[in-house]
Structures are given as C-alpha cells and as structure tokens.
C-alpha cells in the first residue's frame, strides 16, 4: 500500500501516482494499491504506526517521522531539473531598496504555512541565525506560497519567503530575489517497518532503476513534470533540516 499526503486534491493525486503504482505492481509482482491520507498529521501517524507500506513524503515530515520511528527505510528521492536538492527564496518587490538580509530590519515579513519547509522553516532559521527575526517590524503566516508572493507584490509586506516554483511564476510581475536559502534534499519515498527488508530492497531497486524502464520517465513526470529521475537517499541527507527544526523547536516559535 502506497500512501500520499494530501498536498493536492485527491483526484489529482490519484491521476499523478497511478502510473507509478501500476509500475510497482508489475515489477514487484505484488498487488500495490494507492491511498491518499486524509491529512498531513494522519499521514505521519500512519507512517510511524506502520499502517501503510510505502509513503511519499516531504522533507520536514520525514524529519518528524524519522525522529519518532528510526526503523523507517529511505528508498529514493526526487531529482528535479537535474538536482536532488531544492531551496527557498527570500524575496521582495523589484522596486524595493532591500538588497540583503540585513536591510530587513524594521521591515514586515511574510511566511507561508508554519509547517512549510521553504516558506517558513528554512528561511525562518536563516533569519534567526542572522539575528534579523527580532528586528522585523512585524511578521505573519499567510496560508500558502502564492499568498506570500501576492502579499509582497500588493505591498502589504516588505519581503517574504517562497519556494522556487512560485518565485519563477511571479518574478516578472515584480518580484526580486534577496537571497536563496540553504538547500534541502527533495521529497522522498520511504517504506515502513511493516515491510520486510528483502522486499524493501526490491522496491528501492525498482524505484532507482525506473528511468531504465521504457515508460519510466513518463511515470515520474506524471508525479511532477519537472522530475527528471529518482535517486538514492539516506536519512543523513536531511540532517541539516533536522538541525534547523530542532533549533526552531528550541526557540519555541
């Protein structure tokens, strides 16, 4: 059973992941089914409780899950446009006089969702590290990357943090990059403790060799059009994110 967190409408996820599920069923010779978790929390619960076999999971969720359940097996991570890492963007309006992070003091700042890796956790950490967080005149959590971009464009906030895709979409509407954030390993597939080690290896093998399959590229691009490969992954790939999250937890944001 492969579970996916509900980052898109269920029907859309069904469409995107069905080719992969069918591919796994064929290569493993086992019946693999797709399930969409009702919420991010439930997704985490199902993983840590071992109620499902395979899961597609975001970096921040993985760090949380791995802390609770170290028996999780990492299978493969996405390679997007040739890179298995991604970063966030700290942005402002094109006509703003903010050039570097230190210019942000006395300014207002927009984050996305509190649990979002690139619109909150990573950039928040960097602002904290540079001691800018407490110099901001105000900051707020807007629900979603797009909202942050529009909040800055519309002039409600002086700066904000968003993922690369949203930045590219709104860049020509008047956004300017201040600084890229630290890079974090991409989204990944894991198997839970419920899956026997031998089968786990089989699944990993199937995922990592997917591009050798004639339809492989089509299958992974169906998940996200910018995905170019599935590459090997280990838990330590996420240690920088883990450090960030621990640090932020201590700060009790």
């Amino acid at each position, binding site marked *: 059973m492969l579970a996916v967190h509900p980052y898109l409408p269920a029907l859309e996820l069904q469409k995107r992941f069905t080719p992969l599920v069918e591919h796994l069923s064929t290569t493993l010779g086992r019946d693999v089914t797709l399930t969409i978790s009702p919420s991010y929390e439930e997704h985490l619960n199902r993983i840590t409780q071992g109620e499902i076999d395979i899961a597609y999971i975001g970096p921040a969720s993985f760090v949380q899950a791995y802390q609770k359940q170290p028996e999780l097996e990492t299978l493969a991570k996405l390679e997007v446009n040739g890179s298995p890492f991604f970063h966030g963007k700290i942005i402002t309006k094109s006509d703003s006089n903010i050039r570097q992070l230190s210019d942000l003091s006395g300014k207002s700042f927009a984050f996305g969702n509190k649990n979002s890796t690139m619109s909150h956790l990573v950039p928040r950490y960097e602002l904290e590290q540079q001691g800018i967080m407490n110099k901001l005149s105000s900051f*707020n959590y*807007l629900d979603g990357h797009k909202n942050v971009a*529009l909040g800055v*464009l*519309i*002039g*409600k906030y002086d700066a904000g943090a968003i993922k690369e895709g949203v930045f590219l979409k709104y860049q020509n*509407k*008047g956004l300017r990059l201040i600084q890229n954030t630290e890079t974090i390993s991409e989204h990944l597939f894991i198997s839970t403790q419920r899956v026997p080690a031998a089968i786990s290896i089989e699944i990993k093998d199937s995922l990592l060799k997917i591009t050798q399959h004639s339809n492989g590229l089509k299958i992974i691009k169906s998940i996200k059009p910018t995905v170019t490969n599935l590459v090997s992954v280990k838990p330590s790939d996420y240690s920088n994110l883990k450090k960030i999250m621990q640090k932020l937890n201590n700060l009790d944001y």
Partner: protein
Amino acid sequence: MFKRANINSAYWIIFLFLIISLSAVTFYFIEHQRELLTELEKNSLKNELEIAAEFIREDITAERYQHIEPFFQLWAHKNHKILNIKAIANNGFVLTEHSTSTKISTHTIKLDKEVEGPIGVSLEVEFDLREIEKEINSLTMLVIFSNIGFITLFMILLWIIAQHYLVKPLRDSEDKYIGLATKDPLTKINNRRAFDDQTLHEISHCKRHSRPLSMLIIDLDHFKRINDTFGHHVGDYILQLVTTEINMIIRDTDVFGRLGGEEFGVCLPELTTKAALLTAERIRQRIESLPSLESNNIKYPITVSIGLCELTNNEDATTLLQRCDSLLYEAKGAGRNCIKFHDE
C-alpha cells in the same frame, strides 16, 4: 372650388407630414428608450461591481490574496458582459488583468470602483452593452413597422374619404361640363362641334392606315310641316325618336351627331360605299316603318333622305361633308325617302 390636382397635392403633403412627424417621434422615443435601458443596465452593473468589491475587500482583509484572481476569472465567466477587468493595488501592482479577445470600441461602458481596506485597490471594469443595442434594434423595427402600418391605413382611409367627398363630386361636375360642351341637349348625341372633332379624328386615322370611311347625312323629310302642324314638342319628340332608331342600327364605333335642325351625320369608319349603303338603307326602312302622324285625316309619314359618300384619297372632312350635302339635296329633289350616293 377644389381642383383635383390640389386634392392630390394635399394628399401627398399630408403623407409627407405624417412620415416626417412620425419619424421624429420615433427617433425621440428610441433615443429615450436607449437612455433608459442604458441607465438601468448601468445601475445593475454598478451593483454587481459593489458586490465584487466587497469580495475583494474580504479577501484582502483575510490575506487570501490568491483567491482574488480566480474570483475575477469566475466573475468574468459568469457575467458574459464583462469585456475587461483591471484591478490595481495602490502601490501600482496589477492584481489581475482579464480581457476578452474581441475588442468592441462602441457599445461598452467602463465603471470604476475603489476598494477600501488594508490595501486600497482600484477596479476598472469594461462591460459590453451590445445587448441593449439588440433590444433597441428590435424595438426600432417594431415601431417602424407599426408606423408603416398606421400610415398605410390612414392614407387608405384618407384616400377613400377624399375620393368619396371631394374627387367624385368634382368628377361628376366635370363630366357635366364636358357633356354640356359636346352633347346636343335634346337628343343627347354629339353636337356639331363634337361630331366634327371626332369625324376629323376618324378621317385622319383611316387615311393613315389607308382604310375606307363613309359618311351619311340624314335629313328628316318635311320636318317644318310637322312642327307647324303638331307643335314643337312633337317635333322634338320625333327628333328624339329618330335618334334612338338610328342609334340602334349603327355600331358603337360609328360617330353619330346632330348637325343642326333636323339634320344628322353618321361617320362610318372602315365601310366602303357598298357596305355603308346597307346601313343607310336599314336606317331609311326603319324610319319609314315608324307609324305616321295623322291630323284632319291627313297622314304625315316620317321619312328621311340620305346622302352617302365614301372618302376619297385627297379629300378632307369639309369637302366630304359638302359632297354628302349635295347628294342629300339630290335625294330631296328625287322625291325624298331615298338614298343618293356616288356609284363608281
């Protein structure tokens, strides 16, 4: 006194006046309707704009900026009158710009709305008003057709009234005057002038087409004696009787007239002497067969003498009548109640 030409002119002047005045009224009415409809439409669109502004204000207040663009798209999708939407934040950022591919320069209306809130937004929406034009067009057609119908009916009615009360009496009186000028009052046949005119016309026609034409001059025998014996009223009656009898024999196309006193002329187009002789003889016999008058045991038979001649090539009406006249005198000389003609 009305003249028929005047009546016709008056008729057409009324017609023009109706067309011009109804056109002016129609134009004024249509323009008024257009203003009214535009104003109504403007108010309803203003209401819609108010509602849209309220949605945007709520989204901005709740910092749901990403909802604004889909809202505009949905709005434009639901209201097909929306041609262009432009929403600009007060820092100059264009929140959304929706525009249809077809640009319509006329029949559009642009409405502005300032959205108050944490972030000021000005809305400019251009609406399509072609539907009003469609409504106006069909209304115009309706009014024009009903105007045409009204004018047609009115003019027909006016025509009937004018014909009945103005033109017909006029024509009747005209006919009366023409009759007075051309008819002999006693016998109601052509008088001398009309007979001459028509004879001239027939002669030139027959000459042009090289057709024969014969002329009879008929004179009542001893008419003076009858008048003297029985009085003028009997004489007049005999003239009317003879006219009726001759009229029964000749064709409709023949020209019949009273030349004066007891003398009648009959112009017979298309007839040679031979054929005309048959007609003349029938006239003579018919008159002869009328019952004689009687006074003091003396009989006064009613008979006619006739001079007949056919038109020759280089002859005109005057000489033809003169020739006929001399033949008539020959007939009188030959004992009356007979026909004299040139036998060729």
